[in-house]
């Protein structure tokens, strides 16, 4: 674990894996006075309460993953994505098997970024861990469900994107006017089911 200074009131905590990111986030999320706590792929950015943060990090056990998930969310998906055949071919299997694999796994929100409510989910079966498209789409429709590398995600709104799209959901993923705007938040457990 490496602490990197980030201005006067923030620290970038660098670790070696997503599970260590989750451990750091869980250790800090209930501290008073924290203004921002932003997990990412190999880092956690924390703003505010740096004295308490440094104290908490002195005793942290990075091998201890958070025991309980704050929320469990199920997302219905229509598996008719434009890249479903490509994903099946790359995996050396069939579209039905891709759907079975994607709906059998249990995922966790590692972090959000890219766009409001865009959640990077870990737990993707190895056969579905595939590269991005050679050429990204200029517009990925809202609700598209895709895979890229070790992650799967659903697009909260239309954006450009290079993920391989296997399906779509009609579930609202982000609504800025709602009381809880983002359906998915770091630490949440997620499952996909056939709609």
């Amino acid at each position, binding site marked *: 674990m490496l602490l*990197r*200074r*980030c*201005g*006067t009131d*923030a620290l*970038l905590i660098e670790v070696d894996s997503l599970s260590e990111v989750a451990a750091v986030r869980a250790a800090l999320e209930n501290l008073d006075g924290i*203004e*921002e*706590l*932003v*997990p*990412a*792929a*190999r*880092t*956690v*950015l924390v*703003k505010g309460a740096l004295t308490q943060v440094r104290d908490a990090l002195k005793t942290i056990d990075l091998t201890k993953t958070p025991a309980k998930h704050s929320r469990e969310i199920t997302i219905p998906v229509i598996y008719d994505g434009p890249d479903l055949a490509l994903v099946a071919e790359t995996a050396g299997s069939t579209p039905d098997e891709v759907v079975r694999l994607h709906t059998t796994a249990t995922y966790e929100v590692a*972090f*959000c*970024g*890219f*766009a*409001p*409510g*865009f959640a990077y989910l870990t737990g993707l079966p190895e056969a579905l861990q595939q590269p991005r498209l050679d050429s990204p789409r200029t517009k990925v429709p809202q609700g598209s469900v895709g895979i890229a590398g070790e992650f799967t995600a659903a697009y909260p*709104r239309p954006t450009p994107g290079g993920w391989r799209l296997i399906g779509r959901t009609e579930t609202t993923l*982000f609504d*800025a*006017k709602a009381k809880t*705007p*983002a359906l998915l*938040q*770091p630490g949440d457990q997620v499952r996909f089911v056939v709609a």
Partner: protein
Amino acid sequence: MKRHMKRSITIIRTGPQALVEDLGRPGNAHLGVPPSGALDQHSLKLANRLVGNPENTAGLELLLGGLALKANASCTVAVTGPPTEVRIDGRLADSHHPVHLKQDEVLEIGTPQTGLRNYLALSGGIEVDEELGSRSTDLLSGIGPEPLRANDVLHLGTPNLPVGADVVPPHQALHTLVIPIRLGPRDDWFDDAETQLRQGYWTVSDRSNRVGARLSGTKLNRRDGEIPSEGMITGAVQVPPDGQPVVFLNDHPTTGGYPVIGVVDNDYLRFLGQARPGTEVRFRPID
């Protein structure tokens, strides 16, 4: 005469860009939501104090002034930011001072000679729906109200009594900004980051916006490659492969994959928010 249910104003013209802004929605970066809010918070707070509003009340951020509006009910307004001409029904009035508008009077704000953004506070504040606890327009994420257009009607909240006079020197835009910067978190991606920052000089590019102040000038030499996306804070100086630094302002993306050589103190960001293209920028690394 038609009675309005609520106090309101009607926009007659917007100038280059007129946005509803308060102090933003920090604390939501973990959802991918930028902080947003007024780029020159100092000027918005002053304008609000002048009309008796709490400092975080929503007002208007006016890129290069140029706005005209009609008051549909009497209200008190104040224009801050760089010095600019203020007129009420054609009569000259003061900027940086509370000004009373009677019903049907027209307020016109001129184009500032220096600086970029004027702020207009109205007694009671702009009442649009809050999104994630703020009324600010976030141009990156599309959260908050759309940029204003002619004929928009904006409702105003309940006014308070002004609490008394502020001493308010107009914002003076500088020709050269010398900006304190603290190295890190990724200064180790650069060969002697401190010297490169200290000896370089840049100008503010015309591609700057609410997402970031893009600087053009000395190429900062960095390692090749990208970092797995990591959290970004306002004031982070990100360096893309072309070596031309970008200082993140309020509508910045919450994560990014280019190394951040250093972070500019919050207190100095308003000067970048007011810096016209061509303004000279130097960095002063500090501990």
